[in-house]
């Protein structure tokens, strides 16, 4: 039952996407809306039905696999087109289709004036299908297929406005960096196949302990999988594509580059926790990368002027928290953060989209200010999102971040380092998010006021923002310190109850709550002092720390370093190849061969005189000689 519905959930977005893509002309907007948005709504309703069905089952009876047919069976490798419906994948399905539906609904109005309305929805539906395939796959093979498809959809949507060179460049960059990750993931899957002889999740995870705890193989598999995860989830040093991906339309940024696709790396680690449980070193490396990422991205977000880039760096930072949590073994906390982040970051992006729409595609914070008087809905969405992401008590981010940090503290040792980084990150998060809020919605408007006056959004855009705003307020109550731990118990059948699974202790929670409250309110207060109370103050203070601020504004110069390290040497090698090696090497070989053949054939072609009688003479001569030779040979043998 559950699996049958899951197949339908998987197929519906694919069909609607294909129908939209194959429609011979640009269909009427009404058709595009019904197909593009309706399919995701249907998928969400079915996912919720599956969820309700699983809730009715006993905890150990919530995982089902279903195989459509055998895809490959060769040399001992058996791969079926199979899906796995279990608490983890159902949770991801709910996030993908639920948040996805709201964002599709929002796009109806946001993309209204775009001439490629149909193409937008076709690509978005393709993305939803790919993401569902990624989370539903029951083996590494189809995980990789889904993984590659979301990369494709991301590429298509970042470069949606292909007339802009910057969008095309950003799409290419995202694709290239994601391919690095794909290679890691594929190599990891190969290593799994070689070591365990199967690509099937159930079998592979059941037999994972055969590799032995702390073995080199387990470490290698984990690190290879993590390369894939880091590229998809924009972790240092593979993070540089995500801020550029903001070239895509805002709903794309909200759905793909905030709520779902970039968290696929977190999902991958949670899904493969059986491997990560075997190697504490791999887990610590993952957590370290996450910690570095969250801190680095938070500092960069402080200096961005483009409203979407602030949110993009914030996403990098928040995903850093999740990666840190799952690296330490706090899988449920990581997934909790993933869900909460999907709510509040989608709310933030969509609210930012309302601003951008209202200001005729203006994205610079310098051109904003005092918007709360004009855009009430955006102010609500942005406000709820900021309170949530900063970790104000009662909001989703508070519970989620708290869960992550107190798990880190409970891990002890290396976890202490992560905890400190996380607390500093929480302070910076509050600072940069409220900087955005104060600069966009408070204070005076830009010089000369707005022209034209920002227009409020209609209900297509308002309703999703309000719903997501409410979700970022209440979404955290799934898992409350000292109270019920809804998500933990929901995910227990997937994660097991091994010693490697980290859950926060009460002491850790008390310490974390106190410290993170200080950090959050400290950040908000500093943001108010710097950006809210007196808008001129930040300009006066900007000179004080000009050097560090410039480095942060340049995102720690990663792009320039990559240019120097890879792009420029690559160009130089290509140059030398083209001007020095190629003319004499491959090209010389070809022209040389041609000259030899031509010379030889010129000699031979002289014999083709066109004189039939001459041919006859030569033929007779040849036959005679052959006859003489044969006769002599025969005479010799007899």
């Amino acid at each position, binding site marked *: 039952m559950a699996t049958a519905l899951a197949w339908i959930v998987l197929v519906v977005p694919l069909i609607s996407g294909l129908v939209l893509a194959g429609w011979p002309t640009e269909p009427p907007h009404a058709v595009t809306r019904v197909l593009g948005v309706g399919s995701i709504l249907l998928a969400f309703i079915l996912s919720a039905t599956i969820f309700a069905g699983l809730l009715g089952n006993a905890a150990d009876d919530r995982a089902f696999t279903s195989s459509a047919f055998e895809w490959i069976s060769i040399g001992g490798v058996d791969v079926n087109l199979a899906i796995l419906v279990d608490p983890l994948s159902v949770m991801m399905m709910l996030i993908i289709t639920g948040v996805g539906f709201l964002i599709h609904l929002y796009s109806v109005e946001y993309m209204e004036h775009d001439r490629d309305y149909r193409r937008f929805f076709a690509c978005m539906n393709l993305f939803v299908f790919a993401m569902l395939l990624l989370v539903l796959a029951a083996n590494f093979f189809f995980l990789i297929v889904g993984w590659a498809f979301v990369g494709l959809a991301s590429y298509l949507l970042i470069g949606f406005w292909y007339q802009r060179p910057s969008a095309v460049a950003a799409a290419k960059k995202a694709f290239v960096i994601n391919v690095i990750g794909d290679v890691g993931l594929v190599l990891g899957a190969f290593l799994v196949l070689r070591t365990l002889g199967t690509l099937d999740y159930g079998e592979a995870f059941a037999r994972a302990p055969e590799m032995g705890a702390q073995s080199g193989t387990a470490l290698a598999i984990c690190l290879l999988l993590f390369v894939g995860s880091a590229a998809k989830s924009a972790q240092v040093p593979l993070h540089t594509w995500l801020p550029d991906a903001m070239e895509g339309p805002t709903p794309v940024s909200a759905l793909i580059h905030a709520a779902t696709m970039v968290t696929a790396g977190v999902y991958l680690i949670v899904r493969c926790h059986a491997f990560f449980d075997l190697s504490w070193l791999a887990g610590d490396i993952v957590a370290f990368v996450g910690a570095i990422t969250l801190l680095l991205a938070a500092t960069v977000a402080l200096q961005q002027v483009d409203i979407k880039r602030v949110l993009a760096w914030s996403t990098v930072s928040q995903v850093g928290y999740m990666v840190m949590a799952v690296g330490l073994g706090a899988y449920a906390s990581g997934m909790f953060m993933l869900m909460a982040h999907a709510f509040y970051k989608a709310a933030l992006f969509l609210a930012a989209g309302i601003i951008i729409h209202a200001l005729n595609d203006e994205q610079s914070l310098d051109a904003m200010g005092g918007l709360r008087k004009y855009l009430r809905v955006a102010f609500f969405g942005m406000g709820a999102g900021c309170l949530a992401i900063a970790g104000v008590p009662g909001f989703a981010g508070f519970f989620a971040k708290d869960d992550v940090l107190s798990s880190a503290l409970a891990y002890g040792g290396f976890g202490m380092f992560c905890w400190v980084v996380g607390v500093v990150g929480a302070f910076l998060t509050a600072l940069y998010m409220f900087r955005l809020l104060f600069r966009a919605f408070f204070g005076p408007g830009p010089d000369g006021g707005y022209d034209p006056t920002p227009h409020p959004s209609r209900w297509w855009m308002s309703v999703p923002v309000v719903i997501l705003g409410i979700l970022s307020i209440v979404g955290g109550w799934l898992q409350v310190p000292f109270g019920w731990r809804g998500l933990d118990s929901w995910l227990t059948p997937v994660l097991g109850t091994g010693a490697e699974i980290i859950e926060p202790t009460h002491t850790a929670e008390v310490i974390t709550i106190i410290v993170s409250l200080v950090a959050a309110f400290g950040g908000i207060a500093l943001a108010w002092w710097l950006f809210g109370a007196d808008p001129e103050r930040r300009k006066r203070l900007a000179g004080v720390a000009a050097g560090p601020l410039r480095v942060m504004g340049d995102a720690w110069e990663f792009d320039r370093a990559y240019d120097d390290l890879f792009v420029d040497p690559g160009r130089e090698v290509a140059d030398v190849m083209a001007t020095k090696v190629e003319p004499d090497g491959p090209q010389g070989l070809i022209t040389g061969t041609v000259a030899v053949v031509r010379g030889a054939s010129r000699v031979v*072609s002289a014999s083709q005189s*066109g004189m039939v*009688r001459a041919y006859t003479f030569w033929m*007779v001569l040849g036959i005679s000689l052959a006859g003489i030779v044969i006769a002599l040979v025969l005479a010799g043998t007899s």
Partner: protein
Amino acid sequence: MTVPIAAYLALSLGLLVLGLIGVMRRRNPLMLLLSVELMLNAGNVALIGFSRQWDDPSGQVFALVVMVVAAAEVVIGLGLTVAIFRNRTNLDVDELSAMKG
């Protein structure tokens, strides 16, 4: 009295050489065709000689087949010759060298 096989072969060889020389020396396509006929018949003589030698009629059957083929060949050859003559008014195979390399 029986004719020895050597006589058949000698006659056959003589006709073949005559035909060959004709093909190589003559420029007129009609004479060329005649020479080819001569060579075919040299073959026929040899076939019949062997047939007599081994007392096997299949040699004679082959000779009949060769005659049929020769007739067909002459038809095509004469057809070609007439077609060439129409286009060129003179008949010299040495001038038909459009396929020269």
